[in-house]
């Protein structure tokens, strides 16, 4: 298998000169199947098993659907996956290549909290994959937490969530890997009638990040609320592809992105609201807010709305800004240094998303990470 994979494909192609139709991910030699996180004790209402043949499981549960028609010389993200994810079919190929099975968590109950702690050692190169299956009416909070020892490596994590009728999932991914780690973070979620998903993605470490999310809203009245925050320090690379696909009636989806880019960082953002025929009454809203903190940045974004249903409403907005001289002057006149003012702005951006984390220990961990990032020693 070629070590260069096309990932994060745009649902609809555009000019090739912009080099944003997909990203290229070079995966490391010796990539191995992950052993999973350090297991937390599972409650009785959660059943764990290993899925050796994920596609057979999709078929058994009717999750497999015809590969989708493509549109006007365009292709759909889902075209090459049985259960689409944001990073696309390349990631499934990679899972197969390294022989990674899928950890299946079947959740049948309410008020369930699961916390998975993925730890990496220097030189690790692993791909992990999990499926969270929330049975009808269930309610769970799942936290996936990625940290590592100083050094370099490759961490890949693919999650799929099947949220059945009336079920509700809060999924939080908090990544604070050492900077020399490459992180590939992928999600595919399928929502049935009245299902809800709140997805929070905090990307603080890793100087080379690939992230994808595909929300497939089949069920009438299903809702997705997604928030992503990322920190792109000097010289880092961030590439993500988020797609919210509205299929059911009266579906709702919001996506919020808050990013901080420091000098010589590069970011490619693909954000799509995809309204399919039949999603009458659907509403999609997407916003990206970027704070550019230095020169020589490469800040690319393609926020798309695709529509084949008349009775829906979609909106997206992007703002790219900097710390304005007026604001800086105001702060400095109050005795706040430029460095402190910048730090406040960054904390504010990250805080927009970190406040969604329901675990006080983890929010404190985020604060500690930021303190270290800013060189604050007395925390």
């Amino acid at each position, binding site marked *: 298998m070629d070590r260069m994979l096309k990932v994060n494909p745009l649902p609809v192609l555009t000019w090739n000169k*912009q080099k944003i139709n997909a990203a290229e991910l070079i995966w490391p030699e010796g990539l191995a199947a992950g052993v999973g996180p350090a297991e937390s004790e599972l409650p009785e209402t959660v059943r764990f098993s290993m899925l050796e043949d994920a596609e057979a499981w999709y078929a058994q549960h009717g999750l497999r659907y015809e590969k989708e028609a493509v549109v006007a010389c365009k292709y759909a993200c889902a075209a090459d996956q049985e259960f689409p994810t944001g990073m696309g079919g390349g990631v499934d190929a990679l899972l197969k290549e390294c022989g990674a099975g899928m950890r299946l968590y079947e959740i049948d109950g309410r008020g369930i909290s699961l916390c998975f702690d993925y730890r990496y050692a220097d030189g690790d190169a692993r791909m992990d994959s999990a499926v969270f299956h929330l049975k009808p009416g269930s309610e769970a909070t799942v936290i996936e937490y990625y940290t590592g020892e100083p050094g370099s490596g490759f961490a890949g994590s693919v999650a799929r969530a099947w949220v059945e009728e009336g079920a509700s999932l809060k999924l939080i991914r908090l990544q604070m890997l050492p900077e020399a780690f490459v992180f590939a973070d992928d999600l595919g979620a399928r929502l049935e009638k009245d299902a809800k998903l709140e997805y929070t993605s905090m990307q603080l470490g890793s100087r080379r990040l690939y992230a994808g999310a595909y929300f497939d809203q089949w069920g009438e009245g299903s809702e997705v609320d997604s928030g992503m925050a990322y920190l792109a320090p000097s010289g880092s690379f961030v590439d993500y592809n988020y797609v919210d696909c509205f299929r059911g009636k009266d579906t709702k989806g919001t996506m919020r992105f808050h990013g901080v880019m420091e000098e010589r960082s590069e970011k490619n953002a693909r954000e799509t609201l995809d309204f399919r025929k039949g999603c009458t009454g659907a509403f999609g809203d997407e916003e990206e807010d970027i704070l550019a903190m230095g020169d020589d940045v490469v800040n690319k974004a393609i926020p798309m709305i695709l529509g084949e249903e008349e009775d829906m409403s979609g909106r997206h907005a992007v*703002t790219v800004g900097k710390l304005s001289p007026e604001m800086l002057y105001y702060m400095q006149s109050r005795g706040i240094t430029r460095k402190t003012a910048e730090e406040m702005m960054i904390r504010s951006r990250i805080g927009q998303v970190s406040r969604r984390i329901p675990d006080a220990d983890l929010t404190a961990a985020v604060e500690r990470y930021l303190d270290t990032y800013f060189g604050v020693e007395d925390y």
Partner: protein
Amino acid sequence: MSEKYKDKPIDISEDKKKDGLISPGEREFYDFREEERDEDFYHVDEGLTEEVIRQISREKEDPEWMLEFRLNALKVYKSLEIPDWGPPIDGLDMDHIVTYVKPKSGMKTSWEDVPEEIRTAFEKLGIPQAERAALAGVGAQYDSELVYHNVRKDVEAQGVVYTDLESALKGEYAEMIREHFMKLVPVNDHKFAALHGAVWSGGSFVYAPPGSKVEIPLQSYFRLNAPGAGQFEHTLIIVDEGADVHFIEGCSAPKYNVANLHAGCVELFVGKNAHLRYSTIENWSKNMYNLNTKRAICEEGGTIEWISGSFGSHVSYLYPTSVLKGDGSHAEFTGVTFAGQGQNLDTGAKMIHLGKNTTSFIDTRSICKSGGISTYRSLVEIRKNAKGSKASINCGSLMLDSESRSDTVPAMDIRTDQADVGHEAKIGRISDEAVFYLMSRGISETEARAMIVSGFANPVSKELPLEYAAEMNNLIKMEMETG
């Protein structure tokens, strides 16, 4: 690929096939064809070969460098791939396109001297009347060549040159043409730019000297009348320092049951502190592949304004590009696209910020109905040195039924932190409440919907001279009533 979105053969019902024209009543204002005699026209063979290029060049009495330019462009055309990202164009078979059709009458400066059948066509389109009422100069192209060109004396007196490109290529402005021709849109830019370079014919040349002001617009109108033909006019406008020009471009064709092709090219050079407004009402027939390239470059303090109404064609690829080279230069693009039955219109704009403190503004409206596909596609690029630049993009889409499709594909590429960029897009439908309100005031549902759509397109129509705004509103009304 879904059958629905494949490029379909041009669909003409049996009764329409009788005379090769669409039936009256549907789009009769534009779908007419005057009786013509074959002996009044010269045309090259179908297809694209070196011999065809040499024939065109001989016929046009090109200077030697232009023949070489054309032959090189043909090579580039053959080396480039068809784009893989836009609407399908597999129904376009270049082996069956006639790239050059020339009325033998030549170009005239009085409408009385233009052959009757051609003059009648332009009279039906209202061009001579508009010239008398509201234009400073008119160029009228029929198939591959201009048949009429005239400019008002007071405009000429300012030193403004408005002529056909062929005359300019051989006359006093030959060097200026050579210096600018396809420099902004090089032939290797994309496959259809290369095609244009190989077979271009017709089009206009405008030169506005420093400080000149053309207060009423100049207009070029392009009519493609021959079935299975291509039109490849080249418009070159140079607005020198401090000058001000408004140029209007119109185009139409009758509908045939074979594919026609339009691959024109517009190059606009806006000098220091100069201002150019370029307005287009495009209403090609629905068997047309409109693969047009338009680009402007602005020097320090220069301004380019694009006003664009896209209504016709079977498939369109159209993204007017503004290169803001000079510090403090400014670009605006205001556009409306209406895609009806059988149309796949991929339109938008590109803004490239190179200079410091440059500003750009995009405001577009897309409407689709009766199975039409409308794609808004754009690019805002702010390069590293364009510090202090600002860009704002606002695009709205209105879907009138669920048979249609509307996509917005805006890309941004920003390479400095010293820039402010804002982007907002909305997509939705006509609100039932608004229709109900108008109907409660005695307006029929069709009229109410047409009024709402016209209001939605108002940002474009309000920027046009009155006659053209009225034409655009008529086009919207016509589109709302058909399909």
